């Protein structure tokens, strides 16, 4: 069998490709354990995501950070970056976050922006919180804009964004991520068959 090396979420002529995401599945299984969960979704609001997490005792905080990727890219001053991130993320001081859904956003942030965003996120999380992300790793290019990933079911994700122009992928390595996200450790990482690395980070 020949592996399909198309980057994750690239829509083909046949439509978007579903992706097995075992670490996302492991996240869902933890939620099935019961209790109340605060989930921070860095992506846009999607009906499938709401439906998936609506099965649990959840509060879903939706930030839609993809809209701000351009602004985050343009700011280089660390202090201004922190201010921008604070304005974009939910106000601090409420219930702390248990689960963070990064989707593919990590790829679209410069190293300083990634540090600022994930530091801001960490300040809103409980100790031991989990963050799920997808990183373009084996593939050299990625879609120009962040995708629109949603759960197809408890085990599969799908990118509903239309195929479009591409750009080089930063291809963050685990070492890069450790440098940019010093408060997070990689709990598990899995190279997916279409060239992306699925990560589950722990704070």
């Amino acid at each position, binding site marked *: 069998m020949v592996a399909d090396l198309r980057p994750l979420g690239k829509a083909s002529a046949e439509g978007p490709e579903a992706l097995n995401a075992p670490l996302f599945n492991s996240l869902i299984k933890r939620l099935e354990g019961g209790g109340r969960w605060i989930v921070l979704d860095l992506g846009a609001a999607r009906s499938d995501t709401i439906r998936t997490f609506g099965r649990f005792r959840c509060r879903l905080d939706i930030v839609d950070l993809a809209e701000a990727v351009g602004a985050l890219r343009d700011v280089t001053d660390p202090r201004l970056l922190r201010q921008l991130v604070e304005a974009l993320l939910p106000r601090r001081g*409420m219930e702390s976050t248990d689960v963070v859904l990064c989707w593919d956003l990590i790829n679209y942030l410069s190293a300083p922006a990634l540090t600022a965003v994930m530091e801001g996120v960490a300040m809103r999380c409980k100790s031991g919180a989990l963050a799920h992300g997808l990183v373009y790793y084996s593939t050299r290019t990625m879609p120009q804009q962040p995708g629109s990933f949603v759960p197809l079911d408890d085990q599969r994700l799908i990118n509903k964004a239309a195929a479009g122009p591409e750009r080089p992928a930063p291809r963050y390595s685990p070492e890069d991520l450790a440098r940019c996200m010093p408060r997070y450790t990689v709990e598990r990482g899995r190279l997916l068959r279409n060239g992306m690395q699925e990560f589950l980070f722990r704070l």
Partner: protein
Amino acid sequence: MFEIGKKGAPEKGAEASGWTETRPESSASNQKAGPREKAVIGPSIHIDGDLRGEEDLLIEGEVSGTVQLRSNSLTIGAQGKVRADVYANSIYVEGLMEGDLYGTERVHIRKSAQVRGNVTSPRVSLEDGAKFKGSIEMDPQAVQAATASRSSIGNARPAVAAKPAVPGKPDTTPALKTGV
């Protein structure tokens, strides 16, 4: 404070000012059988204050303040702009909404909607394409606490128990206690 007349009969003052009318329901958002009427705040109307009523309401104008329709449905139409905390039995959003939404039965956000606020309701649905920033409380216990608190308080300020934070929106409510 603005009061919508009961069961399709606009109050005298409101009728005289022309800011509310009743007309047969045509919105796709409420597809219940049988003839029903709802009050309409038209596109040229601006209301600033506390809006209460006992009939279904469609807002196509601009409303700031609070909106309370405890036993009825509210539709924020495609032209509507609401900057208010909203309490209703069912809430359907098609236009611009900035504020918190409390739906004792359901909240439905259509694809044309732009919502910046927090949603608390036992049934929340959102159509892809809608712009939403805020929190969706889906924990039945927290929803029940918030909506029950609203019902018992009546016209008082909203329950604060499950009120989460919205980016950029000042909030002075205390944190929700949880069992986690």
